[in-house]
């Protein structure tokens, strides 16, 4: 039996951005591993689609101030806690990746252990 990898769903959130359109086109060339969707932030309800379809990756253009204001990274991670957010910064030719970890904390002392783990980078984001 052939080992078939599941498609990774990638959302690109944008509105009238050639950078995002170009990225969507480039990634679509890898259709055998990526399911790429260019989501127009003006016409599609972002919280709803992100919550219902739970994409693996969400890509944003840092230079698109409208989209960054409308869908801040913290909100996106609330709506899709397991997603990785990639923010493209064309001005500096860099990308920044955001993700989140959700943990149960019962006592303040749990926080101390967590802080120590984070500082020793045992807990990787």
């Amino acid at each position, binding site marked *: 039996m052939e080992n078939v990898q599941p498609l990774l769903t990638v959302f690109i959130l944008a509105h*009238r*951005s*050639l*950078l995002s*359109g*170009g*990225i*969507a*086109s*480039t990634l*679509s*060339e890898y259709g055998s591993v990526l399911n790429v969707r*260019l989501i127009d932030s003006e016409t599609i309800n972002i919280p709803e689609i992100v919550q219902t379809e739970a994409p693996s990756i969400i890509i944003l253009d840092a*230079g698109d101030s409208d989209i960054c204001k409308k869908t801040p990274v913290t909100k996106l991670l609330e709506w899709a806690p397991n997603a990785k957010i990639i923010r*493209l910064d*064309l001005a500096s*030719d860099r990308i920044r990746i955001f993700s989140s970890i959700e943990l149960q904390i019962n006592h303040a002392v749990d926080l101390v252990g967590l802080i120590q783990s984070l500082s020793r980078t045992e807990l990787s984001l």
Partner: protein
Amino acid sequence: MPLRFLVVDDHALFRDGMVSLLKAAGMQVVGEALNGAEAVNEAARLKPDVVLMDIDMPILNGIDATRKITETIPEIRVVMLTVSQEDDKLVDALRAGAKGYLLKSLSSDEFIDLLRKLEKGEPPIPSSVTVRLMNYVAQQSSSSEILNEKLTEREIELLGYLGLGYPNKLISEKLGVSDNTVKYHIKNILQKLNFNNRAEAAAYAVRHNLNPKM
């Protein structure tokens, strides 16, 4: 035959995206360049039908590169592709020989549709840019009419020198008149155009591209 493109932008991610979009639309990309100087060389070497040119780039900017390309190989059509909404850049690009002006805030579909106009010999310019261009031209011609109505030829010439930042002494030498006459003309210009000071007059001259006869 599909149009052959040279894509020029200093950001690799953007360039790659444009190449992918063009290819997906059935167009041919014959080369890439990451600054204006490279674009000039690659345009001469590859002779593409169209150069998609960013404006703000290191080494040589897109407007100067466009001027060089269109001067040496006029049959190449240069289309600016930029984030810039400034009227001055738009006008400078067209004066440099650009045949189109596209914004990076277009959707992919709009971008490709506008580029297809090149196949019919039409310029790829979005309607929003055309409107800006028309407003600019209208403003320029009404300004020059106002100037001609209000100022004498000598005053317009002197205003041009103010725009260049010349001091009175130098202006008097250029015009062959005394310092007092220069002061008199400047006073008249400020009064007629309702400016508070010389700096406002100089800024006006720069904005309206007033060049004295040198």
